[in-house]
């Protein structure tokens, strides 16, 4: 295959970026998108040019490193697919492909296609945990967890923290990410004790970090590589409201 690439290049966080055009011949349809970029980079380096900086690690849609905005979609074509699972067979020979970083105020570009997603870590620090020390835990079967709740909690817990939901949202809201964690823990007896505090603190942190508010467009759900549904946003809203009321009491 032969393809044309339109890739965002930006030297560092402060620099002004711009699109750079590349033509690439000899692309194999079996290559993954990442392997195609590796192939491009090998070529650029040998020609004495700057390679394109981008992130990837597991190549199995589980670590959440990869984060490319391909032809207007976070993680490119295909539903429930992370960038590292996109293969070149999804594109036509001769296609022009535009590749950008996540665009969101709270995810500043570090270089080319790499962004800083530290804000997600900060939201987690604000309350994405259960307060239990090593050695304090009761028997895992002491608190029974019904299969339905366990499965639902797992569904929410499958979030890989990639940030595609933020990149997909016109308001750059992190609500789906927060909803996933708040719901997972609120569904389980172990997480219920701190559920209120958690919902309030995580939402407050999200707002503080400059993420926009949720206007229920559902764009996040459509692009989430793990199929995290917006029903969890409804659950977050309930948890949050309930927590706010009891706070006010």
């Amino acid at each position, binding site marked *: 295959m032969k393809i044309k690439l339109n890739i965002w290049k930006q*030297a*560092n966080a402060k620099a002004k970026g711009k699109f750079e055009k590349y033509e690439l011949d000899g692309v*194999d349809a*079996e*290559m*993954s998108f990442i*392997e*195609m970029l*590796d192939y491009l980079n*090998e070529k650029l*380096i*040998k020609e004495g*040019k*700057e*390679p394109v*900086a981008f*992130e*990837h*690690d*597991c*190549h*199995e849609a*589980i*670590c*959440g*490193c990869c984060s490319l905005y391909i032809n207007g979609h976070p993680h490119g074509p295909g539903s429930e697919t992370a960038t590292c*699972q996109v*293969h070149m*067979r999804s594109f036509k020979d001769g296609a022009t492909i535009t590749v950008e970083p996540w665009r969101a105020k709270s995810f500043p570009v*570090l*270089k080319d296609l790499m962004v800083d*997603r*530290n804000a997600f870590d900060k939201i*987690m*620090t604000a309350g*994405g*945990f*259960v307060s*239990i020390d*090593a*050695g*304090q*835990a*009761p028997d*895992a*079967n002491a608190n*029974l*967890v*019904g*299969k339905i709740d*366990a*499965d639902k909690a*797992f569904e929410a*817990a*499958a979030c890989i*923290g990639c940030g595609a939901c933020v990149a997909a949202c016109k308001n750059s809201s992190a609500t789906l990410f927060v909803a996933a964690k708040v719901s*997972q*823990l609120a569904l*389980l007896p*172990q997480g219920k004790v701190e559920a209120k505090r958690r919902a309030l603190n995580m939402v407050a942190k999200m707002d503080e970090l400059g993420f926009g508010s949720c206007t229920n467009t559902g764009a996040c759900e459509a692009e989430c590589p793990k199929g995290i549904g917006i029903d969890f946003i409804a659950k977050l809203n309930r948890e949050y409201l309930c927590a706010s009321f009891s706070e006010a009491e």
Partner: protein
Amino acid sequence: MSKLDAKIPEGPLAEKWSKYKATMKLVSPNNRKKLDIIVVGTGIAGAPAAASLAEMGYNVKVFCFQDSARRAHSVAAQGGINASRNNKNDGDSVYRLFYDMIKGGDYRAREANVYRAAEVSSDIIDQLTAQGVPFAREYGGTLANRTFGGVQVSRTNYAQGQTGQQVLLGGYSALKRQIALGKAQMFSRQQMLDVVIVDGKARGIITRNLITGEMERHAAHAVVLATGGYGTIYYLSTLAVQSNGSAAMQAFKKGAFFGNPSFIQIHPTCIPVLNEYQSKLTLMSESLRNDGRIWVPKAEGDKRRPNEIQDEERDYFLERRYPAFGNLVPRDVASRAAKERCDNGYGVGKTGLAVYLDFRDAVKKQGVKVIKGKYGNLFAMYEKITGENPYETPMMIYPAGHYTMGGLWVDYNLMTTIPGLFAIGEANFSEHGANRLGASALMQGAGDGYFIAPYTVSNYLADEITNKVPSTDSPEFVEAENNVKATLDKFLSIKGTQTASSFHKRLGHIMWTYAGMQRNEDGLKKALVEIADLKKEFWSDLIIPGTASEINQELEKATRVADFIDLATLIVTDALNRKESCGAHFREESRSESGEAMRIDDKYSFVAAWEYQGEDKEPKLHKEDLKFENVEVKVRSYK
């Protein structure tokens, strides 16, 4: 050759750990806040260790090279985590788990450590559950369990095919809590480039900030390495592309012994290489072998589509060779059998380097729905990568590098031969002997992190209370930083023509050919020569664009590849020295009449611990003799 002291406590096996814990030195809560600990790595070993030590009151600094602690490669573990809880009332016990691991490891692991790992396994599940890890549950609300290869009980806890993600996020959340409380400090996007030794003790590390390129010096009373495995030595493996052996090599070059470097597990069921630019292989969980049947055509070079090949024209070679265990033989056995078929021309697919894993009979018997319930996410992952639907067409699989049983040699305290330098998780030479059983790596890493290192590190620190952390301006720190800087400058000044990845790929090829699933003396000797040549070429023809004072992914790769090259030599040296076959280490010269692996217990019942002797010098071998007092050493047979 000197003998190594593993510091195994006296007393009966089942009482060693509890008695030892009861007599360990303690640090009072008041003194803990005066003591600093560095933990490098945030996987299933590092995150829990950092969190647990911080919970106790120590000041903990945690490092990882990814942008977030949550991305450590533990996140990719699929199948499950073992615990001897006897949940199924099927006769499981701590002893049985211990026994299975000792046997599975082909009698090359240390009894006391393995027993302790089994002993704390149940507490791990309690801890993770309390953190909100959504393990699979039965309708009644109790934990669900599944069975893994090489054992006869159901002791594996799981969260669909994403167990690693869930247990890692449990550890990550515990760490987040300590960060929130100000007891732990996170340094992400930092690459450790050296250990600093002051007065013979590990006292800190040198790191490079991967965003600014700046060098940083960090000092502490103790350093814990939880930096993972080095299966990426083969270039193509099931590990993340950035997984590496650098931290272990830095420690090795500073005097820490390296244990059994050549013990590397090759996993039988991975998606085969699809194109020459491939940079990673994807694991298909071992659990698939419960229902999938492995076969190749009986006729050499048969190029028909698999569904056109009738049963009588198929060779179900595992069922044929190992009637008792069939498709569920341990990983090393399954991998070698597949390679044997492919080497003899019976392999399938474009490259001939693949065998079929067929679900036709299982789908017929159990229906699509049941199969989907069990393996849905794996089948979907397979289809995404290959474009083929495994419900209709058999999967194609081939073995790939997966897990390193070898690693930094540690004593019972998980301390390396450098005082104050600990190694936990996959980074140490661990409890898996020459072959790891499924679902026991998460168990070991989490056990090290939550329940073992917190005690043993404290025991060490008890003697450090009055010692101040050295200044990062002390000569040892300055010298270490200067050395690291000089190496980076050297990389950048070569200005050759070949990229770091291209060297890695070639190194991987050498290692896979000569030090992969099958090894022999001639091949290994050839490998030593080829690695040495590659090393020369690397240091004279490497190209890295850009500078060291910015984000430079090529520079990061080069540092890893340089260490891989030296590690490769160490692996081959170890493989040459061990002239027996054991577990994953198969020496062609040492097999039984029927072609199976043959251990030589009277000569090789030891851990090989290698000591660095200087650049390009042959390392010195130390032996830790293994004593088996609680199990009878037998031939592993799966016929």
